[in-house]
């Protein structure tokens, strides 16, 4: 018996061990960090962690690296794709670029943004979404559960993401992002922030940055029955824009200051080794195409012979130097532009506790360059004054370069540019969609010529937000496009205002999308480059996105301290109306007069007099007493009698009741 049990146990152990082995074979985790000097002397740091598991159907439900909570989430709510981002600050498209893959993927609107698509029948999508928001809210210690209410999320059709159905999208522009959101995010990583690149995430230094966006992107093919399903891919990125500390180090050239930086000066920490669970663990330094061309031209000016130097011995250029020598230098083969960006790759494999990795980037002289910009610069603003109505305007300004748009030609051969606008407005901003106007180059233009496709689902009071999707087809040579929409400001119930009602309400960012202009890094189709998930991610094509500003709409507030006064005064007016009108209708002057005359002539028993007196009193008419001498004592006597009667009734009531 004992033996049998031990055999069984052994078999069980063996089985589980075997499954672990299988899982380890196919489960993957990788980490990478990309650093990029920005034109305004700041540094972009982009952490990228990716976990993959094969589909449960073929490999079973056991896994060791992939976070269990996410796995359960996907299976419970049948999530096909999901993206959650926590952002603080606004991505500066004008300075930090709007055309490269990193900005189009990682520039997010302030606050929380969540979208998800589900693999469930149409009528269950909303329920799944509600459950998902609650689960994520608990998981990330954020108020994502506010997205549960139907006034907070919307269902974009095509402008947000092409070729997906059952998508739900919601944002919380005012959500404060802090370390309490980062910690649960880090918990999903196998090494947490104890080892590997995530050890760099010193809270004070990353939250000191100008832009901070932590993102979680999940793709799951779990529910596809096709053979080619790739399981689940969880991509976690943290994008920060940091200002290097300029304490003596760095170049000062006139007014331009070009601070040098190192990992330890940016983050206050060094990398003491890779996360042992990760397959690859690399650090990249990227130089933007414009910077490369600038470096080339200056070095050509100064030292004509050393042009080739840039590629071969790039880490010790004339303009800058780096403390370590890269493992390899990856050059972009082909871009839309003449210039291409450079990537220096460093591996963390050799670093350890005793020899921590600390990359230092020293400028030798100041260099000025600019980032690649999106074809149109978008911005959004409010028009009008006062708290009754206003207008939203979205302005798109051309950057004055036509090379972006060369690729997209119409059937007529005319060059054109397609722009998708996706905008969600809360219900208390009541938009009149028929007032949509388009100004091309500051001249009013007919809508039919410009707008290719529209999808509007107007907001319903206290039920759903308004959603507007527009596909614009613009001529390439357009300089400025302005879309305006008028709206009325709603008035809310006193309980619907937030505690700081006078601060105003936020209209979430609009999303401007250029679906025909794709961006990606064109690297050699090299096996080694494909091994790094970050690089393969950057090589995927993605449309250019632009999130506009969050708008702050002040709404009129009622007096919050007065509900009782308002209720009582209004009810008084109603009572006045009812009472006085009824009184006017009821009054019969002649009959009263006749009655009085009869009474006066008859002058019958004292009861009759009292009755007439009583009726006169009730009617509010002073009665001329026939005999004024004895009346006062009689009245008081009667009054006492009445009081006694009422008191008796009250006592009886109290006693028997």
């Amino acid at each position, binding site marked *: 018996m004992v033996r049998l049990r031990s055999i069984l146990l052994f078999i069980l152990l063996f089985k589980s061990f075997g499954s672990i082995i299988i899982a380890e074979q196919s489960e993957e985790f990788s980490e990478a960090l990309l650093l990029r000097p920005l034109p305004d002397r700041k540094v972009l740091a982009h952490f990228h962690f990716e976990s993959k598991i094969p589909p449960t159907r073929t490999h079973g439900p056991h896994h060791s690296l992939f976070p269990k909570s996410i796995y359960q989430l996907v299976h419970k709510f049948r999530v096909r794709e999901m993206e959650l981002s926590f952002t603080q600050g606004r991505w500066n498209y004008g300075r930090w670029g709007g055309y490269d893959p990193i900005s189009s993927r990682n520039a997010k609107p302030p606050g929380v943004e969540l979208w998800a698509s589900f693999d469930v029948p149409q009528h269950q999508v909303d329920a799944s979404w509600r459950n998902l928001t609650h689960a994520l809210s608990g998981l990330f210690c954020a108020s994502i559960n506010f997205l549960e209410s139907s006034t907070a999320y919307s269902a974009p059709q095509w402008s947000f993401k092409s070729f997906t159905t059952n998508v739900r999208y919601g944002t919380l522009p005012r959500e404060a992002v802090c370390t309490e959101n980062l910690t649960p995010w880090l918990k999903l990583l196998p090494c947490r922030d104890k080892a590997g690149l995530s050890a760099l995430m010193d809270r004070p230094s990353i939250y000191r940055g100008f832009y901070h966006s932590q993102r979680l992107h999940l793709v799951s093919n779990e529910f596809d029955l096709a053979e080619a399903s790739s399981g689940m891919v969880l991509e976690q990125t943290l994008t920060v824009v940091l200002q290097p500390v300029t304490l003596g180090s760095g170049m000062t050239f006139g007014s331009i200051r070009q601070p040098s930086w190192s990992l330890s000066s940016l983050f206050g920490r060094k990398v003491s080794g890779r996360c042992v669970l990760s397959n690859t663990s690399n650090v990249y330094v990227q130089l933007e195409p414009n910077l490369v061309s600038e470096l080339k031209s200056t070095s050509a000016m100064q030292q004509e012979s050393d042009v080739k130097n840039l590629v071969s011995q790039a880490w010790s250029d004339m303009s800058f130097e780096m403390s370590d020598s890269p493992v390899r230098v990856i050059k972009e083969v082909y871009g839309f532009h003449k210039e291409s960006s450079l990537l220096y790759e460093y591996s963390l494999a050799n670093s350890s506790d005793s020899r921590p990795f600390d990359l230092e980037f020293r400028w030798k002289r100041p260099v000025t360059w600019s980032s690649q910009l999106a074809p149109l610069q978008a911005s959004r603003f409010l028009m009008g004054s006062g708290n009754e109505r206003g207008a939203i305007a979205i302005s798109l300004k051309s950057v004055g370069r036509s090379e972006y748009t060369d690729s997209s030609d119409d059937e007529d051969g005319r060059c054109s540019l397609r722009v998708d606008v996706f905008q969600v407005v809360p219900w208390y901003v009541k938009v009149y969609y028929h007032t949509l106007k388009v100004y091309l180059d500051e001249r009013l233009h007919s809508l039919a010529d410009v707008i290719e496709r529209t999808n509007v689902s107007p907001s319903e009071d206290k039920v759903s937000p308004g959603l507007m999707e527009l596909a614009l087809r613009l001529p390439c040579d357009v300089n400025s496009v302005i879309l305006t929409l008028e709206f009325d400001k709603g008035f809310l119930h006193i309980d619907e205002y937030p505690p700081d009602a006078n601060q105003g309400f936020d209209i979430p960012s609009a999303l401007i999308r250029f679906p025909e202009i794709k961006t990606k890094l064109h690297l050699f189709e090299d096996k080694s480059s494909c091994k790094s998930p970050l690089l393969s991610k950057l090589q995927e094509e993605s449309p250019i996105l632009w999130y506009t500003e969050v708008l702050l709409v002040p709404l009129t507030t009622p007096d919050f301290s007065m509900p009782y006064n308002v209720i009582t005064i209004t009810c008084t007016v109603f009572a006045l109306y009812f009472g006085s009108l009824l009184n006017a209708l009821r*009054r019969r002057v002649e009959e009263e007069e006749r009655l009085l005359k009869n009474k006066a002539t008859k002058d019958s028993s004292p009861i009759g007099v009292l009755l007439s007196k009583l009726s006169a009193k009730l009617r509010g008419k002073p009665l001329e007493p026939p005999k004024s001498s004895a009346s006062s004592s009689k009245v008081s006597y009667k009054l006492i009698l009445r009081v006694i009667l009422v008191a008796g009734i009250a006592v009886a009531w109290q006693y028997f009741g």
Partner: protein
Amino acid sequence: MKEEKQQNISTKKPRFWRWTVASIIFRLILIYFPKNLNLATRPEVSTPVTSLRRLAEGYWLTQSLMSPYAGSMYHGSPLLLSVLGPLTMKKIEEQPFHLLCSLVSVIADFICAMLIRATGLKLRMTYCERLKLLGLGKLFEVSEILPSEDIAALVYLWNPFTIVTCVGFNTTPVENLFIILSLYGACIRVAPLAAFGWVIASHLSLYPAILIIPVILLLGNGPDATPRKLFLMCKKDEDDSSSKGRVEQNGLKELKSFSWKPVVLFFVWAFIWTLYVLVLCGIFMRNYGGLSEMFRRTYGFILTVKDLSPNIGVLWYFFAEVFEFFRNFFLIVFHVNILFMILPLAIRLKHRPCFLAFVYMAICSMLKPYPSVGDSALYLALLALFFNELAEMQFSFFLFCGYVGVSLLSPVMHNLWIWRGTGNANFYFATGMAYACFQIVLVVESVSAMLNHDRKIRKLVAAT
């Protein structure tokens, strides 16, 4: 002396037409400056139910194959949408779209004034006739009875409230037109016309539905007159003396009975018109959720006071402040307040159905959730129809000053609160309160003045 008066009357007629034409020209001039006046967005002028801007949005939604009621913008009738909707989109030679709609409201205003005049003429003729029948003709000389129909029409045309309503795009002139049409139809005892006006008016703005009582009384009893009891008294006297002619007595007999025929006809026609309207709406709404959706979005919106944007009424602030769990209770209380007064008024004023209609309209415009000055314009014009009867009304100067004061203060308070942000909602609400109080005083005083007038006639009849 008599010749002079006749001259007066003959000169009065051209003067009336001159003023009418002048008022229409004045409106047409104002239409050309709507941008400067910005009346379309004033809370006093256009309410969520009557705003043409919202109608344009509803029409745009139907054009883009959506329900006009999607998006809580439009809350009017689908019929109005299909009639006025195309006008909001059309442009004539680069003129702004509102021109056609404004022309429609000018025409509606003019027809309305003409109908008021015709109704008033009928009323005055009956009034004089009755007085003669009662033998009081000598007491009330022809000269003393002013042409109240002209006055009422001019009051309607030159009332600043009407002008403002006409120029600021909204559907109130059209709604008023149907109310007056129903009263006029009842006055001349044409049951189909009365039924048509009543059905359309109730369909457009719900509250005119309670006009069914005055309309029935008008159809049954004929236009406003002195109480029937007086004729009985009078008849008795005549029987005693038997000095008066036979003809008059026959006339009195006719007046006495309540004629059921037009009333039955009215019900039949009202049924037919209602069916017709519902079928039309059903055809319009068949793709957008049917009639139940329409009722929910129009009458439901009016009855549940969903929109809390400020207006000149009192309910918006009340429901913005009241606690959520009392909301239903107060909704019932406020609506029942209107219904409670219907019966007492009908009993007391059954001999004066037109005046009853005025009181009902005034009460509705006071208690409805989305009132506008257009409603006041209508009942003020109806009030002017009883110029002769209400000559002894109390507080009329006080009321006039109150109306002027409120209509000056209310925009100021609104401006301070909404546009400058220096005022407070309470100030604006206070003007709304004051306005409600003035309306209450007006209703109460006019009702008691009318009752006093009847009393006076009774006394005079008794004296003769």
